[in-house]
């Protein structure tokens, strides 16, 4: 097993592997401009696959449903499992006169979902199956008034939607290389263990960028990550690997979890259960998915996978990851959902270790959260016209270019 810290060249600049991205500063306009945001709404959020952050096991039985208000798409989305087991998405809009169909954010509709307004009933596959006093309509055929479908597909249990009625590519085509890199990961075996949601008065890109680099680790998360990140061979570089794809990207980060002195509770937690401050056993590292710790370093901290535009996976071990789903509401308001997926406790002691990891993650996210609205206020002051991008912020630079390409295109995939 090679040790990647020996083989990575001191002074490596990952950005220089991608001359098409340049090294210049980036404009601040996309973070502030209402006009730019409306273009993003039309050409990004209305046309690409976006992750709902929800997993299929959250609607396990036929008839189970979730409702998501997707403000950037100006619609409410109904995700429902049909009798055939398939998860479908629909606009949550009654096709009679447009009332909101499902009012709860989750539920079970059994044999049908009935609109409160006039009592129209729809099956879990979207067909209109019941219309009170149907004989009083004129030239009426129920088949013409099924729910309006939304393109919906699933990757590793995560439900994605595409508000384009006719998406030019399938979800798997859209995800590209990421599918193979993460194939075999325990997505299907790790239960949703915690989930936090916060409304943020900031542009979605501020939120997105906050989880797209770890240059901030040594400062903002000094107590949590500072010691783990100390790298004597490469004091100012913490990147083990970076891969840029057509739309998406990943970065793998250095962190010496094995040799960093641990606190009393960390030691206890590692003794009784999983902990994300502990380097997982490297015994079977060769069998990990190709994209998890891709350099197979023993000084590996975590990987970030960014699924453009609104989904981040942070993988800390073969059995522990977090997922961030971020969606704009308006040009200066966004929603952040941060979730932890952690092994199911088998004893009450493991419930405690899970709680420890949850509280640790939550406190780290509260540090991240502290920057968001302050950054919004800072850039609204007009002080910045552009900002410099460090090598370890490469994924932000790439994401900006991806967005620019989509905004310049006619909306069709190349």
């Amino acid at each position, binding site marked *: 097993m090679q040790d990647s810290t020996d083989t990575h060249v001191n002074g490596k600049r990952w950005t220089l592997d991608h001359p098409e991205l340049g090294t210049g500063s980036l404009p601040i306009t996309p973070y502030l401009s209402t006009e730019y945001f409306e273009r993003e709404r039309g050409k990004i959020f209305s046309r690409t696959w976006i992750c709902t952050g929800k997993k299929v096991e959250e609607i396990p039985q036929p008839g189970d449903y979730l409702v998501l208000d997707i403000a950037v798409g100006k619609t409410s989305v109904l995700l429902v499992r049909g009798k055939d087991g398939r998860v479908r998405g629909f606009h949550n809009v009654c096709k009679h006169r447009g009332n909101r169909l499902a009012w709860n954010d989750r539920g079970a509709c059994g044999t049908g979902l009935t609109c409160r307004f006039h009592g129209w009933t729809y099956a879990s596959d979207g067909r209109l199956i019941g219309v009170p006093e149907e004989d009083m309509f004129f030239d009426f055929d129920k088949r013409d008034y099924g729910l309006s479908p939304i393109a919906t597909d699933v990757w590793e249990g995560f439900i994605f939607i595409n508000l384009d009625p006719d998406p030019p590519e399938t979800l798997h085509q859209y995800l590209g290389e990421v599918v193979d890199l993460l194939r075999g990961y325990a997505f299907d075996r790790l239960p*949703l*263990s*915690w*989930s*936090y*949601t*916060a*409304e943020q008065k900031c542009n979605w890109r501020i939120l997105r960028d906050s989880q797209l680099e770890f240059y901030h680790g040594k400062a903002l998360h000094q*107590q*949590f990550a500072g010691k783990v990140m100390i790298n004597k061979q490469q004091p100012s570089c913490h990147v083990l690997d970076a891969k840029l794809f057509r739309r998406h990207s990943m970065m793998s980060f250095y962190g010496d979890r094995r040799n960093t002195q641990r*606190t*009393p*509770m*960390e030691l*206890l937690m590692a*003794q*009784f259960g999983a902990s994300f401050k502990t380097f997982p056993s490297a015994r079977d590292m060769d069998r990990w998915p190709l994209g998890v710790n891709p350099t197979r370093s023993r000084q590996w901290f975590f990987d970030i996978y960014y699924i453009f535009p609104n989904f981040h996976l942070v993988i800390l071990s073969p059995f522990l990851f977090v997922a961030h789903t971020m969606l704009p509401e308006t040009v200066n308001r966004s929603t952040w*959902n941060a979730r932890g997926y952690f092994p*199911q*406790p*088998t*004893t*009450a*002691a*493991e*419930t*405690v*270790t899970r*709680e*420890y990891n*949850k*509280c*640790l993650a*939550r*406190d780290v*996210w*509260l*540090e*991240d*959260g*502290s920057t*968001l609205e302050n950054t919004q206020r800072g850039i609204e002051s007009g002080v910045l016209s552009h900002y410099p991008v460090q090598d370890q912020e490469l994924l932000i630079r790439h994401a900006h270019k991806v967005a620019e390409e989509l905004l310049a295109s006619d909306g069709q995939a190349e």
Partner: protein
Amino acid sequence: MSDTSLPEPFTDLEPLAAVWALATETERNQQRLSSTMAQIQAFYDTLLPRMEAVLTYLSTFPPEPPDALPQKARRLLYLALAMAEITTAVELHQQPSVPAGFEPRRFIPDHERMER
């Protein structure tokens, strides 16, 4: 008093449990944020040397739901969960709250609603 006591080996921790053995993360977090650092440090210092024994004891019980645990063991679990809650205050922040952190009240734990 049976509903306010701890399992036999841990009865001396009763003064801590009276304050900290709370059923939800929101309650435990509020207790943390409304305590002084001296109170939190005292809780940590008292429980830490017993924590291995507490976890060993809890290893003999199923994980959840908490209702599945006998009342005394459940109370010990809540106390241990509070220890998990305050650990970052002691080991990372040296103060009750995350320094300059985002407001906890606006960081909504959806999992509490899902669990019910």
